[in-house]
């Protein structure tokens, strides 16, 4: 197993590691994620039935309802949220949900912006470790 490190931009502070779940399409957390189980319930989502709990969620962009922040915070409160979220575009709804879980419950779900040229290499990793600090984020991948 070899490790590689990638630079990223911190959106929400924290450190996490875990297996990845790469979404083939963006997911609206509200209406698309069940907080009580961490399962994707969006009928039209190709990964319906997959579980985000404890995963490094690779989601290029956000989508859908602005209530997604509350759903993400609630899933994190119940211990069924993703370990971290990697994105390619800034998404306010995702960021707020993660910040809230940190502010209200002290639960870290770091969010970082990766470089699009690194995306395929990251997605090919078995697991990722994200360290999102105030001066930038680093992702190390076990390839």
């Amino acid at each position, binding site marked *: 197993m070899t490790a590689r490190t990638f630079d990223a931009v911190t959106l929400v502070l924290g450190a996490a590691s875990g297996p990845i779940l790469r979404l083939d399409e963006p997911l609206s957390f509200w209406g698309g994620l069940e*907080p009580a189980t961490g399962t994707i319930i969006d009928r039209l989502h190709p990964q319906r039935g997959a579980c985000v709990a404890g995963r490094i969620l690779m989601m290029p*962009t956000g989508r*859908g*309802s602005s*209530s997604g922040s509350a759903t993400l*915070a609630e899933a994190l409160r119940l211990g069924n949220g993703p370990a971290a979220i990697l994105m390619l575009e800034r998404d*306010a709804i995702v*960021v707020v949900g993660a910040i*809230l879980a940190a502010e*209200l419950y002290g639960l870290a779900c770091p969010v970082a912006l990766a470089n699009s040229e690194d995306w395929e290499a990251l997605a090919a990793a078995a697991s990722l470790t994200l360290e999102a600090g105030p001066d930038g984020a680093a992702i190390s991948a076990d390839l």
Partner: protein
Amino acid sequence: MRLLARFAEAVDARSFIDIEAAHVDGCLYHGRASLDFAERMIELGGRVRVPTTLNLGSVDLIHPELFRGTKEHAENGARLMRAHVELGCAPTFTCAPYQTAWRPRFGAQNAWGESNAIVFANSVIGARTNRYGDFIDLCCAMTGRAPAYGLHLIENRLARAIVEIVSIPEAWDTERLAVAVGHTIGRRCGGLVPAIVGLPAGTSEDDLKALGAAAASSGAVALFHVVGCTREAPDLETTCGGLTPELRLQLTTEDLREAARSLSNVADGGPLGVVSLGTPHFSIAEFARLMPLLDGARPLIDIFVNCSRATLEELRKRDWEAPLRAARVTLVADTCLYVSALMKPGVGAIMTNSGKCAYYAPGNLGVGIAYGSLAECVASARAGKVVRL
């Protein structure tokens, strides 16, 4: 303010702007986290500093007897709604604040939550807001400020995708066309602002509402332009501001039919439990379209119509409530069928004229869904099964 500052950092905003008004989406109960946040704000002495409307909640405070969920859900839902009023928000409880006296003016800087309201404010009214989620909309309301980024800035409001409607299915009304176009641009335009070319002249404000709601459900659309129709789109050149579009789409009859079909998973002729109208909240103009359709045989199944308490008040003034109820209409205020617990368990599939309801109801309620025009919804209610006209 600390939350807002961290949020501004996360969206790469360099400064803040003053806002005129806010629409807060946080009064819909999603679990303890929603309530913990609002009650923490009250403890800290929080109060909104700009006129602030409230989105729908989880329960109908005017008709509490309609709620069929758990006692805990009803209590926490109502508590969350009241907590927001305590923070100084107006008890509008509607996802369509643009239908109320708080409708923003052209060019106003606002901080709005609720995806359909956001896209309507930006596109139809020409007010300026980003997609503010729960919590951050309240932080903006309590500080009177929003981070200067995204759609607050004029340069980000130009169209980057051109969507041309080249052919329209025969006999389709403007509402069904709007839903099919909205559903398609949501799925295909990503984060690009689309300029739509070729919507017919009779497209109404309610059609644009339906278009935006569908686009903000199947995608993250926060602003669209309809060339020759919406406020910032007098012609294609102005709408694009000299930028070369990154995407060009041509929608044909077949694309539009497929989009409408994809919103249904109950076959034509299949049994229905209820019809649900008013996602987003039904306007007075929509009630005026519905009333004549209800003349005739009494429906076999219930028709739920979701609207704001202000619209309900207006219905009462016009003496429309009694004829609606006589035609098996259940009026729902303050909430919406698909985000609350109003249906009898096991009652069966829903039919709706809303792209948004069709998108979310199966996941939220675990029921089958049929999408159709308003006239098809009423005909189907009469037959108790999916009828196509």
